[in-house]
């Protein structure tokens, strides 16, 4: 039943979003005490991943054994790994080489081509 899927997806998306916002407000209102500052980031990451899974399964029909959907998902994962991983690698590398060299002489060139 598709309608059922959509409703389950809609309700659980809303629930996950409200939990994330609720915890954040709680965090700010309690003066960064509960939930603790160090706990907030992992919590939000887990909730975001949950949100992702809910949307993939309920809205994008990734629950079926349809090869095409899984292929697309695989390619999407590949692109995410390339762009996010590549960005981390590049930005770390830039930061290191800029930190190592003499600060007076390094002006990052920001001219495009």
């Amino acid at each position, binding site marked *: 039943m598709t309608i059922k899927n959509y409703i389950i997806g809609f309700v659980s998306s809303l629930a996950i979003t409200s939990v994330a916002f609720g915890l954040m407000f709680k965090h700010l209102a309690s003066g960064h005490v509960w939930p603790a500052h160090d706990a907030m980031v992992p919590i939000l990451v887990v909730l975001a991943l949950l949100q992702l899974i809910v949307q993939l399964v309920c809205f994008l029909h990734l629950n079926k054994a349809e090869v095409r959907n899984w292929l697309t998902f695989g390619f999407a994962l590949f692109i995410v790994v390339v762009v996010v991983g590549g960005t981390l690698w590049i930005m770390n590398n830039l930061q290191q080489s800029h930190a190592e060299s003499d600060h007076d002489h390094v002006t990052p060139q920001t001219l495009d*081509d």
Partner: protein
Amino acid sequence: MLGKLDLSAFIHGPIETVAQLSVVFGVVVVVGLLSYYKAWGWLWREYLTSLDAKKIGIMYIALSFVMLARGAVDAFMMRTQQAIEVGANSGFLSPDHYAQVFTAHGVIMIFFVAMPFMFGLINLIVPLQIGAKDVAYPFLNSMSFWLTVVGAVLINLSLVVGEFAATGWLAYPPLSELQFSPGVGVDYYIWALQIAGVGTLISGINFLVTITTMRLKDMSWMKMPIFVWTVFGAMILVIFAFPILTGTLGLLSLDRIAGFHFFTTDLGGSAMMYVNLIWAWGHPEVYILILPAFGIFSEIVPTFSQKRLFGYTSMVVATLAIVFLSFIVWVHHFFTMGAGADVNAFFGIMTMAIAIPTGVKVFNWLFTMFRGRILFKTPMLWFMGFLTTFVLGGATGVLLAVPGADFQLHNSLFLVAHFHNMIIGGVLFGFFAGFVYWFPKIFGFMLNERLGVYAFWCWIVGFVLAFIPLYILGLMGMTRRLYEVSPQFHPLLVVAGVGAAVIALGMFFQVLQLVVSIWQRKENPAGDNPWNGTHLEWQTSSPPPFDPERSNDGVMVGILAGLFGFAMIWQIWWLAVIGLVGVLAVLIARSFQHHEHS
């Protein structure tokens, strides 16, 4: 009430006022002509609200031609400025205006000439080639087109109200941040691209679904024409690359509107992150443009060599290899930013590797021509012009892929010559070839061959004259975007200016070709298959049957999105809310109606 908008937005310097008046004059002339010939109803019913992919394709191409004229005027202004700026003469443009002109030229040529031209040809031909009646989502197709139009309108509106970005076509921070660009120029840039970008993304999904699900039963993947394959590859790139652009520009607008610090130099921002992200989109973007052009040539070469395409399977593999590799090369646009040797070497090698599948394609076309009985019609001439110029551009590209060489040539006119080599000689010649090749199919009459040949020769000669000097100037050390030029560069800049004039003559012949061909359309009927093409589009009548289905909602979404964009640029918040809520209301209302199409 009106945000940052006041009367001073309408007041410009003398040259800008000419541009302002010519936009207003152009609009008045078009509106006047349409009213005089009582053509509004016809235009509205037959084109503006049509859901037929071919009608939408024709409108895309019309949009791209109008914007090509605008972008070309920008190019001629730059060439003139650099050619006459010598000795005591400081040229005719102010420095800030010159910066706006080169920014607008780049943005317009990529986003509002090449992209609409590409989507126009795809709309015209892909459904016919796979034997589908229309695309998978005809309404979304109409909406995508209107969102693209909104982007183009906003760019031209910046000539009349306010100013355009003076930052270069990718609007690098910190220059594009509020601190250094306090005017609305960058906001025009951001919102024109955001709105047009949504349209592009939806089109990408639309055609991917169309190609995947709507082929004739007998057309398996490995029986698809190469043009369909390359469009398939390009649409995959659109779907995965354009969200990066939207996200990056979204962060930049948060910096500008809401005081965030993603890309500022202080408070933890990093301008280098912007450069990294924008090129993670920007590199796939150039392959989005070139892949369909490769596909067009793969249709044209067998037809005019009167042979089967050589190496079909290797063409498919090469296309898919380009799709993969184009996501792993983006650092070659900023080797000089300061990453270590490991990063630069990796991306340099990847960049050289992507030349391999492209080379495979070139050899396949050559072997297709080998021992064929070649007919030198205009589409084939465009192909041969492409082949000679594109191989040169590819060679300079591989040279630039070597980080050591790039340190010397980065940001020089050598680089400018290289990418014009790829985008004029590759993309534009390809789309012109496709336009001439498929024109008879869509309109039912032939384009004048003689004027087409004149146009081609003007373009290729003008291209060589305009851009070979830039290679030499780049090697001499001249950097790009210069408002004032050292005297030793002057002679070659005059040659480049002459080249631009020859290209202008070529464009004149193209307009003349259209006018003459329409005038003599009765004498030159096309017949169903004028070129003896072998694919499905030639098995139907010329013109093919049009679908009468229409909807006003696409135009409505366009108008409301345009209001939203304009309001965001000038920070007129109440109007932005009206525009955005309006778009959503139209779409929600539409989802409650019953449609044969979705």
